C-alpha cells in the first residue's frame, strides 16, 4: 500500500461514517453470492 491508499482508506472511513462501510458491503456481497449458490441460481463455480 502506498501513502495514496492509506489516505484513501482514511477518507473512506470518514466518508463511510454515514454510509454503508466496505466491511458491510463485503458481507452483503458474500451472502448474496452464498444464497445464489444455495438456491441453485449458480450451480457450479470452477477453479
Amino acid at each position, binding site marked *: 500500500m502506498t501513502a495514496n491508499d492509506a489516505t484513501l482508506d482514511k477518507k473512506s472511513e470518514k466518508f463511510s461514517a454515514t*454510509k454503508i462501510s466496505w*466491511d458491510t458491503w463485503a*458481507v452483503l456481497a*458474500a451472502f448474496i453470492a452464498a444464497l445464489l*449458490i444455495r438456491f441453485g441460481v449458480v450451480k457450479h463455480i470452477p477453479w
Partner: protein
Amino acid sequence: MSETFAIPQIKQVQVKPAQPNLQLFRVIPGILLLAAIGYAGKLLEQNVGKYAKAHHWIFPNIEYVLWAILLGLAISNTVGVPAIFRAGVATYEFWLKVGIVLLGARFLLGDVLKLGGVSLALVAIEITGAIAFMTLLGRLFHLKPKLTTLLAVGSAVCGVSAIIATQGAIDADEEDSSFAIAAILALGALALFTFPLIGHALHLSDHAYGLWAGLAVDNTAEASAAGALYSDAAGKLAVLAKTTRNAMIGFVVLAYAIYWASQGQAKTVKNKAAFLWQKFPKFVLGFLLISVLATYHFFSKDQVTALANLSRWAFLLTFAGVGLRTNFREMRKQGLRPFAVGAIGEVVIAVFTLGLVIGAQNIWGW
C-alpha cells in the same frame, strides 16, 4: 515527513473513496486489472510447471498466489499503476473481506471454536506482549506518545485498519498515522517473502505456520497471502488467527481512546457499546455466520465446494492488489526511522509468536 506523504497523484486525478454502491464505473478498470493479473498468475501456475517438466528443467512449483503478487509488483515498480486503474485496485480489501466471509463455509463451527480457542489464547498473549514491547520501544527511541500508540496498535492488532481506527479515536496527527502505516506495510511486504522461507527452514507444520503467519503478520491481506504461499491449509489457519486478532480491534481502540481522553488529549467516548460496534470488523461476523450455516448443513457438499472456489477467486483479486499497491520507491521515501522502530518491534514479535506457536505445537502435537 509531511512532504514525504504528500499525495500529488490524488490531487491530480481527484480519486475519491471507491464505495461499491457508488462510482461503479470508476472502479471497473481497476477490478478488471486485478482479475487479469490474478488469472495470469493462475495460468502461469498451471503452465510454467508443465513446460519446465516437458523440457526437463528443474523449476520450483510456484503457486498462483506468488505469481499474482510478483506480476503486480513488476507492474507497480516499473510502469506504475495508471490513474484510471487506481480506484479499482483500491477495492482489493473489499475482495479480501468477501473471500474471508465465504471461507467460513469451509470451517464447521466446532473447528472454529476448537481452533479459535487456541488461537484466542495465543492472540491475547500476542496483543499484550506486542503492545507492551512497542510502547517500551517507542519510549526508548523518544517517539511521540501518540505515534507510539499507533505503532503499538498496528503491530498488535491488525495493521492499517487498526491504525486508522485508532487515529480517529485518539485525535492523532495524520502524519503520525502515515508514519505508522508506512512502517507496518513495508514490513508486511518483507514478511511475504521471509515467512515462508523461515517456515520451510524450521519444517513447521501447516497448522503451526498458519497460526504463526496469522499472529505475526500485521495487515490482513499480507497475513492471508503469507499463509497461502506456504499451503492451502496454512492459508486457512492464517486467516482464522488473523480474523481472531481483527475481532479484538474494537476493544483495544476503546481502551486507548479512554486512556487518551483521561489524559485530556482526545474526545470522551460517550456510548461505549456504539463505539465498539462502529469499530468492530463486520466481516468477522459474516465469517462466523457462514460457518454456523455450514455446520447446520444449510449448504450441500457441492455448494460448499462452490463457495470455497468463489472464495479463492476473491483472494486471487486480493493478491494481485497486494502486488500492485506495493511500491518500493514509495517505501524508500518514508525514511529509515519508522522502518527501524517497526523492524525491531516486528522481528521481536515474530520471534516471540514463533516461540508461542512452537510451544503450542509441542503441547497439542500439531
